[in-house]
């Protein structure tokens, strides 16, 4: 596809109530910088149903133009309907580049759209820039478990598309809305939607876990043995005023929610102190926490790789060590 404009698009995913997902608003921040460098208009694309709240949110966070597709067929995300709508918009307006939040839906939509537009897609980016020489996007993403940061360019295809990790960029300050709003009617035939949504169960007690901003993190891994094994982790965390983190193995086992995951595919953290308990220290875990000022490890296995990156380690049973440590800390802080 040819780019008809120099515009940069941010796809803004909507919630069922018509509000915008955070990551869409976050992406307007780098989007603005990139659109300026590319000399185009920062355009937000909002697809959903009853989307006024989302449109208002993007208008007050830096979007200069907003393309809105609103209709009952978009009330709940389906790959087919959203792909048809987004591709129709791209074909009509021809943006030069497009950012999509790397949520599960974004990760579903991005490849489907790029495939239809016969272009590449850089997934799960953690940094974005514009190459000053040719105005193309330089997409940076981790590879090989975080062993490597790769910077990738899409030289000849348009739009250049990438998905970007939630939480990497911060929302900008709210401003007066001055965006031009364009509404597009795109209808999708029911027969073109090949998956039927039978039921949706929402998790209302979604935990808010601020790992990125935490000064101290106490994390548990498979070594805690089960959901109850997080109790001594939580107690130590409470004594320290720390946030609870986890390895992916503990999350995949269903012992703790994904919001606690640290690592390549979880949160990247930079606390003053990181205490890893019952975590072996796989490269993908280290990718998320090796920026901590001080790393402490408690692990039964003296050979565990976590000790290679630890400042201080205890080779022993976390169920023995943590309660004693928690007592010591409580006493010191009393």
């Amino acid at each position, binding site marked *: 596809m040819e780019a008809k404009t120099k515009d940069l698009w941010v796809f803004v995913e909507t919630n069922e109530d018509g509000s915008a997902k955070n990551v869409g608003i976050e992406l307007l921040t780098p989007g603005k910088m990139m659109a300026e460098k590319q000399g185009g208009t920062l355009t937000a694309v909002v697809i959903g149903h009853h989307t006024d709240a989302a449109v208002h949110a993007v208008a007050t966070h830096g979007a200069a133009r907003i393309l809105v597709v609103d209709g009952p067929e978009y009330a709940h995300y389906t790959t087919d309907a959203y792909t048809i709508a987004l591709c129709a918009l791209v074909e009509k307006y021809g943006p030069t580049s497009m950012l999509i939040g790397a*949520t599960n839906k974004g990760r579903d939509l991005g490849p489907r759209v790029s495939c239809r537009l016969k272009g590449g897609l850089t997934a799960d980016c953690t940094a974005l820039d514009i190459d000053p020489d040719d105005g193309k996007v330089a997409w940076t993403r981790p590879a090989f478990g975080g062993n490597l940061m790769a910077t990738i360019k899409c030289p000849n295809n348009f739009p250049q598309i990438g998905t970007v990790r939630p939480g990497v960029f911060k929302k900008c300050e709210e401003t007066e809305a001055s965006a031009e709003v364009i509404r597009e009617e795109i209808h999708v035939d029911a027969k073109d939607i090949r998956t039927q949504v039978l039921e949706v169960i929402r998790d209302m007690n979604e935990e808010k876990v601020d790992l990125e901003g935490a000064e101290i993190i106490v994390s548990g891994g498979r070594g805690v043995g089960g959901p109850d094994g997080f109790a001594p982790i939580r107690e130590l965390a409470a004594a320290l005023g720390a946030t609870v983190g986890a390895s992916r193995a503990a999350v995949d086992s269903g012992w703790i929610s994904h919001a606690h995951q640290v690592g390549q595919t979880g949160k990247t953290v930079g606390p003053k102190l990181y205490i890893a308990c019952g975590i072996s220290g796989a490269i993908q875990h280290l990718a998320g926490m090796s920026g901590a000022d001080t790393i402490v490890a408690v692990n039964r296995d003296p050979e565990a790789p976590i000790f290679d990156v630890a400042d201080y380690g205890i080779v022993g049973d976390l169920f023995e060590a943590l309660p004693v440590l928690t007592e010591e800390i409580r006493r010191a802080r009393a």
Partner: protein
Amino acid sequence: MKIIVCCKIVPNEEEIRVLPDRSLDLSATPWKISQYDLNALESGRQLAAETKGSVTALSVGGPSALDSTKIRKDVLSRGADDLKLVIDDSHSFSDSLETAKALAGALKNCGAFDVVLCGMGSSDLYLQETGIQTGALLGLPSINNVTAIRPAGEGLLEVERTLEEEVETLEVTLPAVLSVSSEINVPSVPAMREIMRAGKKPVAVLDDLGALDGASLEMLEQLAPEQQERRQEVIEGDGDEAVEALAQFLKKECL
């Protein structure tokens, strides 16, 4: 039900050497089945057992990975009845769309199938896109982050898909491409009997790649992140003395 499981053979990321100039040395890195493709193989095995179906494993990669008998046997000991390979060096770096084209081309040569199962994302690059693009190229529906699969009558599957804040139950018409989440199951360790049988199962090398148009992406730079020096003071034992020493360290250095 005829099931095809796509598995990628990847360098074992735990054994990659980072060189002083922050580049990677993969020359001595052993190959393994991509971690989360083990979940796809396990799902395939379970679905085949429920539907009295069969599982074909499919992999695209270079000769150093796919010529290995050890790797082939490893795949075949995990529930696949046979293995199909597309061996081509040019796939080591292209873009996911090129890989998807090779997979789609191979799938057209696999005869009729009901469902293609992919992992959530590969251990090495983890783009999480190849399965979805393969579905798009074949004109089939695709669903990512699948956390449960249930047969739902002729030509249909009921699929659970877990998102950040919600769990969807979807009905999908077959054939379809499903990317299963790493939470969907705990891959079983192959029994001795399965390992013995694996060596006797058929392996076919497909040569028809379909026409590839060349990658649309280009690598600008690859560097390992900088690492901090660590003190590595390690104490053996979880007795009170050891823990007290740790508490002292924390009080002095961190709190």
